Protein backbone atom coordinates (compact mmCIF):
# COMPACT_ATOMS: atom_id res chain seq x y z
CA UNK A 1 0.00 0.00 0.00
CA UNK A 2 2.82 2.35 0.93
CA UNK A 3 4.83 1.50 -2.18
CA UNK A 4 1.75 1.93 -4.34
CA UNK A 5 0.92 5.37 -3.00
CA UNK A 6 4.58 6.48 -3.13
CA UNK A 7 4.81 5.25 -6.70
CA UNK A 8 1.64 7.02 -7.75
CA UNK A 9 2.72 10.28 -6.11
CA UNK A 10 6.15 10.09 -7.72
CA UNK A 11 4.75 9.37 -11.17
CA UNK A 12 2.22 12.13 -10.71
CA UNK A 13 4.92 14.60 -9.73
CA UNK A 14 7.06 13.69 -12.73
CA UNK A 15 4.12 14.03 -15.14
CA UNK A 16 3.27 17.39 -13.54
CA UNK A 17 6.71 18.65 -14.52
CA UNK A 18 6.10 18.09 -18.26
CA UNK A 19 4.40 21.23 -19.58
CA UNK A 20 1.35 20.75 -21.80
CA UNK A 21 1.38 24.22 -23.32
CA UNK A 22 4.30 25.83 -25.08
CA UNK A 23 4.57 29.33 -26.47
CA UNK A 24 6.70 29.04 -29.57
CA UNK A 25 6.84 31.20 -32.69
CA UNK A 26 5.08 29.76 -35.79
CA UNK A 27 7.19 27.25 -37.67
CA UNK A 28 6.15 28.47 -41.16
CA UNK A 29 7.95 31.55 -42.47
CA UNK A 30 7.26 33.35 -45.77
CA UNK A 31 10.52 34.46 -47.35
CA UNK A 32 9.43 36.10 -50.61
CA UNK A 33 8.79 35.20 -54.22
CA UNK A 34 10.92 32.53 -55.93
CA UNK A 35 12.42 34.94 -58.47
CA UNK A 36 13.61 37.38 -55.76
CA UNK A 37 16.80 35.44 -54.98
CA UNK A 38 20.18 35.68 -56.71
CA UNK A 39 22.18 32.66 -57.86
CA UNK A 40 25.12 31.85 -55.60
CA UNK A 41 24.00 34.28 -52.90
CA UNK A 42 23.01 33.75 -49.27
CA UNK A 43 19.98 35.71 -48.02
CA UNK A 44 20.54 36.64 -44.38
CA UNK A 45 17.31 38.57 -43.83
CA UNK A 46 15.73 35.66 -41.95
CA UNK A 47 18.77 34.65 -39.89
CA UNK A 48 17.02 35.61 -36.66
CA UNK A 49 14.38 33.03 -37.59
CA UNK A 50 17.04 30.34 -37.99
CA UNK A 51 16.90 30.42 -41.83
CA UNK A 52 19.44 31.14 -44.57
CA UNK A 53 17.91 31.13 -48.05
CA UNK A 54 20.51 30.08 -50.61
CA UNK A 55 20.18 29.77 -54.38
CA UNK A 56 22.56 27.09 -55.62
CA UNK A 57 22.65 25.70 -59.15
CA UNK A 58 19.16 26.97 -59.84
CA UNK A 59 17.64 25.56 -56.66
CA UNK A 60 16.36 27.47 -53.63
CA UNK A 61 17.52 25.93 -50.34
CA UNK A 62 16.60 26.86 -46.72
CA UNK A 63 19.56 26.16 -44.44
CA UNK A 64 19.26 25.92 -40.66
CA UNK A 65 21.52 28.40 -38.87
CA UNK A 66 22.23 25.97 -36.04
CA UNK A 67 25.78 24.58 -36.01
CA UNK A 68 25.66 20.80 -35.84
CA UNK A 69 28.50 20.72 -33.33
CA UNK A 70 26.98 22.18 -30.14
CA UNK A 71 24.23 24.51 -31.34
CA UNK A 72 25.79 27.97 -31.78
CA UNK A 73 24.92 30.20 -34.77
CA UNK A 74 27.61 30.35 -37.50
CA UNK A 75 28.40 33.49 -39.48
CA UNK A 76 28.36 33.68 -43.27
CA UNK A 77 31.72 34.96 -44.45
CA UNK A 78 30.95 36.08 -48.00
CA UNK A 79 34.56 36.89 -48.92
CA UNK A 80 35.69 33.40 -47.95
CA UNK A 81 32.54 31.81 -49.30
CA UNK A 82 31.83 29.72 -46.22
CA UNK A 83 29.80 29.54 -43.03
CA UNK A 84 32.06 29.67 -39.97
CA UNK A 85 30.95 28.98 -36.42
CA UNK A 86 32.51 31.36 -33.87
CA UNK A 87 32.22 28.93 -30.98
CA UNK A 88 34.63 26.15 -31.99
CA UNK A 89 35.53 26.87 -35.61
CA UNK A 90 33.24 24.52 -37.53
CA UNK A 91 33.18 25.39 -41.23
CA UNK A 92 30.41 24.66 -43.77
CA UNK A 93 30.39 25.11 -47.58
CA UNK A 94 28.91 28.33 -48.90
CA UNK A 95 27.36 28.29 -52.40
CA UNK A 96 30.72 29.33 -53.87
CA UNK A 97 32.49 26.26 -52.48
CA UNK A 98 30.02 23.47 -53.13
CA UNK A 99 26.73 22.02 -51.91
CA UNK A 100 25.74 24.60 -49.24
CA UNK A 101 25.95 23.34 -45.67
CA UNK A 102 28.41 20.46 -46.07
CA UNK A 103 30.83 20.42 -43.11
CA UNK A 104 34.46 20.53 -44.17
CA UNK A 105 36.48 21.85 -41.24
CA UNK A 106 36.30 21.97 -37.46
CA UNK A 107 34.45 19.70 -35.04
CA UNK A 108 31.03 19.67 -36.71
CA UNK A 109 30.19 16.00 -37.27
CA UNK A 110 27.61 16.48 -40.03
CA UNK A 111 26.29 19.09 -42.49
CA UNK A 112 23.86 21.87 -41.62
CA UNK A 113 20.24 20.77 -41.72
CA UNK A 114 17.78 22.01 -44.35
CA UNK A 115 14.19 23.05 -43.81
CA UNK A 116 11.24 22.03 -45.93
CA UNK A 117 10.23 24.44 -48.74
CA UNK A 118 6.97 24.91 -50.58
CA UNK A 119 5.10 27.53 -52.61
CA UNK A 120 2.28 29.15 -50.65
CA UNK A 121 -1.16 30.19 -51.89
CA UNK A 122 0.05 33.66 -52.82
CA UNK A 123 3.03 32.31 -54.75
CA UNK A 124 5.58 33.12 -52.09
CA UNK A 125 8.16 30.63 -50.89
CA UNK A 126 7.17 29.17 -47.49
CA UNK A 127 9.86 27.65 -45.21
CA UNK A 128 8.47 25.03 -42.81
CA UNK A 129 10.78 24.53 -39.82
CA UNK A 130 8.73 21.68 -38.43
CA UNK A 131 10.35 19.41 -41.02
CA UNK A 132 14.07 19.03 -41.55
CA UNK A 133 16.33 17.17 -43.97
CA UNK A 134 19.70 15.79 -43.09
CA UNK A 135 22.31 15.12 -45.78
CA UNK A 136 23.93 12.28 -43.86
CA UNK A 137 20.63 10.41 -44.04
CA UNK A 138 20.42 10.94 -47.79
CA UNK A 139 17.46 13.28 -47.34
CA UNK A 140 18.77 16.17 -49.41
CA UNK A 141 17.49 14.46 -52.53
CA UNK A 142 13.97 14.76 -51.14
CA UNK A 143 11.82 17.00 -53.37
CA UNK A 144 10.49 18.99 -50.39
CA UNK A 145 13.97 20.17 -49.39
CA UNK A 146 14.45 22.49 -52.38
CA UNK A 147 12.54 24.53 -54.97
CA UNK A 148 13.69 24.53 -58.57
CA UNK A 149 13.63 28.07 -59.92
Amino acid sequence: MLTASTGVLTLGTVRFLFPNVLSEPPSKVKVGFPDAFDEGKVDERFKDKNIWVVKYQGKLIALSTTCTHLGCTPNYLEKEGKFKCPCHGSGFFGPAMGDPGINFEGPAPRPLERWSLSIGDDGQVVVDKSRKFQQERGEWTNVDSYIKV
Partner: protein
Amino acid sequence: MSVGDFIRNSQVWKSIFRHPAPRDRRNRVVVMLTNVFLHLHPVSVRQSGIALSYTWCMGGLTFFLFLVETITGVLLMFYYRPTLEHAYNDILGLRDVATLGVLRELHRWGAHAMVITIWLHMYRVFLTGSYKPPREFNWGVGVILLVLTLLLSFTGYLLPWDQLAIWAITVGSNMARAHPVVGHEGPGSSLITVGGVNLIHSGSDARFLLLGGRAVGGETLLRFYVLHCVAIPLAAAVLIAVHFWRVRKDGGISGAL
Protein backbone atom coordinates in the same frame (compact mmCIF):
# COMPACT_ATOMS: atom_id res chain seq x y z
CA MET B 1 18.72 44.10 42.82
CA SER B 2 20.47 45.22 39.61
CA VAL B 3 18.68 45.73 36.28
CA GLY B 4 20.30 42.57 34.95
CA ASP B 5 19.04 40.53 37.87
CA PHE B 6 15.57 42.01 37.49
CA ILE B 7 15.46 40.99 33.83
CA ARG B 8 16.85 37.57 34.48
CA ASN B 9 14.24 36.91 37.14
CA SER B 10 11.34 38.05 34.98
CA GLN B 11 8.77 35.62 33.65
CA VAL B 12 9.52 36.51 30.03
CA TRP B 13 13.19 35.75 30.40
CA LYS B 14 12.68 32.54 32.31
CA SER B 15 10.25 31.21 29.74
CA ILE B 16 12.83 31.73 26.98
CA PHE B 17 15.98 30.70 28.83
CA ARG B 18 15.12 27.91 31.20
CA HIS B 19 18.61 27.43 32.59
CA PRO B 20 21.20 29.92 33.79
CA ALA B 21 24.19 30.67 31.57
CA PRO B 22 26.83 27.90 31.49
CA ARG B 23 29.15 27.97 34.50
CA ASP B 24 30.11 24.38 35.18
CA ARG B 25 30.32 21.19 33.11
CA ARG B 26 26.92 19.78 34.05
CA ASN B 27 25.16 23.07 33.54
CA ARG B 28 26.93 23.55 30.18
CA VAL B 29 25.68 20.18 28.96
CA VAL B 30 22.13 20.94 30.13
CA VAL B 31 22.10 24.28 28.31
CA MET B 32 23.47 22.70 25.10
CA LEU B 33 20.95 19.90 25.11
CA THR B 34 17.88 22.03 25.78
CA ASN B 35 18.57 24.67 23.09
CA VAL B 36 17.43 23.83 19.56
CA PHE B 37 20.33 25.66 17.90
CA LEU B 38 23.02 24.58 20.31
CA HIS B 39 21.93 20.94 20.48
CA LEU B 40 22.93 20.51 16.81
CA HIS B 41 26.55 20.94 17.87
CA PRO B 42 28.69 18.53 19.89
CA VAL B 43 29.01 19.47 23.54
CA SER B 44 32.78 19.47 23.21
CA VAL B 45 35.29 18.92 20.39
CA ARG B 46 38.72 17.36 20.45
CA GLN B 47 41.66 19.68 20.14
CA SER B 48 42.81 17.75 17.07
CA GLY B 49 39.61 18.90 15.40
CA ILE B 50 41.02 22.37 14.91
CA ALA B 51 44.44 21.26 13.70
CA LEU B 52 44.41 23.14 10.40
CA SER B 53 47.46 21.36 9.04
CA TYR B 54 45.45 18.14 9.29
CA THR B 55 41.89 19.13 8.38
CA TRP B 56 42.58 22.21 6.19
CA CYS B 57 39.11 23.30 7.42
CA MET B 58 37.91 23.12 3.79
CA GLY B 59 34.73 21.29 4.73
CA GLY B 60 33.95 23.97 7.27
CA LEU B 61 34.74 26.69 4.73
CA THR B 62 32.45 25.02 2.20
CA PHE B 63 29.61 25.06 4.69
CA PHE B 64 30.37 28.67 5.55
CA LEU B 65 30.22 29.54 1.85
CA PHE B 66 26.93 27.66 1.55
CA LEU B 67 25.52 29.93 4.26
CA VAL B 68 26.98 33.01 2.55
CA GLU B 69 25.40 31.95 -0.72
CA THR B 70 22.04 31.37 0.95
CA ILE B 71 22.03 34.76 2.64
CA THR B 72 23.30 36.74 -0.35
CA GLY B 73 20.95 34.73 -2.55
CA VAL B 74 17.89 35.60 -0.47
CA LEU B 75 18.86 39.27 -0.52
CA LEU B 76 19.29 39.21 -4.28
CA MET B 77 15.81 37.76 -4.62
CA PHE B 78 14.36 41.07 -3.55
CA TYR B 79 15.57 42.71 -6.74
CA TYR B 80 15.53 39.95 -9.37
CA ARG B 81 12.55 38.82 -11.42
CA PRO B 82 12.98 35.55 -13.40
CA THR B 83 11.07 36.67 -16.50
CA LEU B 84 12.20 37.26 -20.06
CA GLU B 85 11.55 40.97 -19.93
CA HIS B 86 13.11 41.68 -16.52
CA ALA B 87 15.92 39.21 -15.75
CA TYR B 88 18.82 40.87 -17.59
CA ASN B 89 17.90 44.40 -16.58
CA ASP B 90 17.38 43.45 -12.95
CA ILE B 91 20.93 42.15 -12.81
CA LEU B 92 22.15 45.41 -14.34
CA GLY B 93 20.08 47.23 -11.73
CA LEU B 94 21.81 45.33 -8.95
CA ARG B 95 25.13 46.37 -10.40
CA ASP B 96 24.39 50.01 -11.11
CA VAL B 97 21.53 51.11 -8.89
CA ALA B 98 21.02 48.95 -5.82
CA THR B 99 22.95 49.91 -2.67
CA LEU B 100 25.65 47.33 -1.97
CA GLY B 101 24.69 45.70 -5.23
CA VAL B 102 28.15 44.16 -5.01
CA LEU B 103 26.18 41.41 -3.25
CA ARG B 104 25.58 40.02 -6.72
CA GLU B 105 29.33 39.75 -7.26
CA LEU B 106 29.77 38.26 -3.77
CA HIS B 107 27.22 35.66 -4.68
CA ARG B 108 29.03 34.82 -7.90
CA TRP B 109 32.51 34.76 -6.37
CA GLY B 110 31.17 32.72 -3.45
CA ALA B 111 29.91 30.15 -5.92
CA HIS B 112 33.33 29.88 -7.57
CA ALA B 113 35.03 29.72 -4.18
CA MET B 114 32.64 27.02 -2.98
CA VAL B 115 33.53 24.73 -5.87
CA ILE B 116 37.22 25.25 -5.13
CA THR B 117 36.84 24.55 -1.40
CA ILE B 118 34.80 21.42 -2.16
CA TRP B 119 37.56 20.05 -4.37
CA LEU B 120 40.20 20.86 -1.73
CA HIS B 121 38.01 19.21 0.90
CA MET B 122 37.68 16.06 -1.21
CA TYR B 123 41.42 16.05 -1.78
CA ARG B 124 42.10 16.35 1.98
CA VAL B 125 39.64 13.57 2.82
CA PHE B 126 41.37 11.40 0.25
CA LEU B 127 44.87 12.19 1.55
CA THR B 128 43.91 11.40 5.16
CA GLY B 129 42.15 8.19 4.20
CA SER B 130 38.93 9.42 5.79
CA TYR B 131 36.88 7.65 3.15
CA LYS B 132 37.90 4.16 4.25
CA PRO B 133 35.43 1.77 5.94
CA PRO B 134 33.19 2.50 7.79
CA ARG B 135 33.21 6.00 6.30
CA GLU B 136 32.53 5.00 2.67
CA PHE B 137 28.86 6.01 2.85
CA ASN B 138 29.75 9.51 3.97
CA TRP B 139 32.14 9.80 1.02
CA GLY B 140 29.22 8.84 -1.22
CA VAL B 141 27.02 11.48 0.42
CA GLY B 142 29.81 13.97 -0.20
CA VAL B 143 29.92 13.07 -3.89
CA ILE B 144 26.19 13.70 -4.17
CA LEU B 145 26.73 17.04 -2.45
CA LEU B 146 29.41 17.80 -5.04
CA VAL B 147 26.95 17.06 -7.86
CA LEU B 148 24.30 19.24 -6.18
CA THR B 149 26.78 22.09 -5.87
CA LEU B 150 27.68 21.82 -9.55
CA LEU B 151 23.97 21.77 -10.41
CA LEU B 152 23.51 24.90 -8.32
CA SER B 153 26.27 26.50 -10.38
CA PHE B 154 24.64 25.28 -13.60
CA THR B 155 21.15 26.54 -12.78
CA GLY B 156 22.40 29.81 -11.35
CA TYR B 157 24.44 30.49 -14.47
CA LEU B 158 21.29 30.93 -16.55
CA LEU B 159 19.66 33.54 -14.33
CA PRO B 160 21.44 36.67 -15.64
CA TRP B 161 19.91 35.78 -19.02
CA ASP B 162 22.82 37.08 -21.07
CA GLN B 163 24.43 35.52 -24.15
CA LEU B 164 26.91 33.57 -22.04
CA ALA B 165 24.09 32.13 -19.94
CA ILE B 166 21.76 31.16 -22.78
CA TRP B 167 24.40 29.46 -24.89
CA ALA B 168 26.04 27.67 -21.95
CA ILE B 169 22.70 26.16 -20.99
CA THR B 170 21.89 25.37 -24.64
CA VAL B 171 25.11 23.41 -24.99
CA GLY B 172 24.70 21.73 -21.60
CA SER B 173 21.12 20.72 -22.21
CA ASN B 174 21.96 19.42 -25.68
CA MET B 175 23.79 16.66 -23.88
CA ALA B 176 20.46 15.53 -22.48
CA ARG B 177 18.95 15.05 -25.95
CA ALA B 178 21.85 12.78 -26.92
CA HIS B 179 21.33 10.53 -23.90
CA PRO B 180 20.50 6.89 -24.59
CA VAL B 181 16.81 5.97 -24.46
CA VAL B 182 15.56 9.16 -22.79
CA GLY B 183 17.07 11.63 -25.27
CA HIS B 184 15.26 12.05 -28.57
CA GLU B 185 18.50 12.17 -30.57
CA GLY B 186 20.29 9.45 -28.65
CA PRO B 187 20.60 5.74 -29.36
CA GLY B 188 17.53 3.77 -28.45
CA SER B 189 15.24 6.80 -28.55
CA SER B 190 12.60 4.84 -30.46
CA LEU B 191 12.63 1.99 -27.96
CA ILE B 192 9.79 3.28 -25.80
CA THR B 193 6.69 3.05 -27.97
CA VAL B 194 3.07 2.55 -27.02
CA GLY B 195 0.73 1.40 -29.73
CA GLY B 196 3.13 2.48 -32.47
CA VAL B 197 3.54 6.00 -31.05
CA ASN B 198 7.09 6.96 -30.14
CA LEU B 199 6.99 8.30 -26.57
CA ILE B 200 10.39 9.99 -26.69
CA HIS B 201 10.50 12.98 -29.06
CA SER B 202 11.65 16.58 -28.97
CA GLY B 203 8.57 17.49 -26.95
CA SER B 204 8.81 14.75 -24.35
CA ASP B 205 12.41 13.68 -23.79
CA ALA B 206 14.77 14.34 -20.86
CA ARG B 207 15.91 17.63 -22.38
CA PHE B 208 12.29 18.79 -22.64
CA LEU B 209 11.78 17.98 -18.97
CA LEU B 210 14.92 19.90 -18.02
CA LEU B 211 14.17 22.97 -20.16
CA GLY B 212 10.38 23.03 -19.84
CA GLY B 213 10.29 23.51 -23.61
CA ARG B 214 12.04 22.61 -26.83
CA ALA B 215 14.55 25.44 -26.55
CA VAL B 216 15.97 27.60 -23.76
CA GLY B 217 13.21 30.11 -23.10
CA GLY B 218 11.05 31.72 -20.46
CA GLU B 219 9.91 28.40 -19.05
CA THR B 220 13.52 27.35 -18.66
CA LEU B 221 14.38 30.52 -16.78
CA LEU B 222 11.56 29.99 -14.30
CA ARG B 223 12.33 26.30 -13.91
CA PHE B 224 16.02 26.93 -13.26
CA TYR B 225 15.14 29.73 -10.84
CA VAL B 226 13.00 27.41 -8.72
CA LEU B 227 15.61 24.67 -8.85
CA HIS B 228 18.38 27.11 -7.96
CA CYS B 229 16.61 28.89 -5.09
CA VAL B 230 14.45 26.18 -3.55
CA ALA B 231 14.70 22.59 -4.72
CA ILE B 232 18.44 22.00 -4.87
CA PRO B 233 19.28 24.02 -1.70
CA LEU B 234 16.67 22.00 0.21
CA ALA B 235 18.13 18.73 -1.03
CA ALA B 236 21.63 19.97 -0.23
CA ALA B 237 20.58 21.03 3.28
CA VAL B 238 19.19 17.59 4.03
CA LEU B 239 22.33 15.88 2.77
CA ILE B 240 24.58 18.31 4.64
CA ALA B 241 22.78 17.30 7.83
CA VAL B 242 23.41 13.63 7.02
CA HIS B 243 27.02 14.40 6.15
CA PHE B 244 27.71 16.20 9.46
CA TRP B 245 25.82 13.61 11.48
CA ARG B 246 27.97 10.89 10.01
CA VAL B 247 31.19 12.73 10.87
CA ARG B 248 29.91 13.27 14.42
CA LYS B 249 29.00 9.65 14.93
CA ASP B 250 32.24 8.37 13.46
CA GLY B 251 34.34 10.04 16.12
CA GLY B 252 34.16 13.74 15.26
CA ILE B 253 36.28 15.59 12.72
CA SER B 254 39.80 14.14 12.62
CA GLY B 255 38.88 11.90 15.52
CA ALA B 256 39.45 8.17 15.78
CA LEU B 257 36.45 5.87 15.55
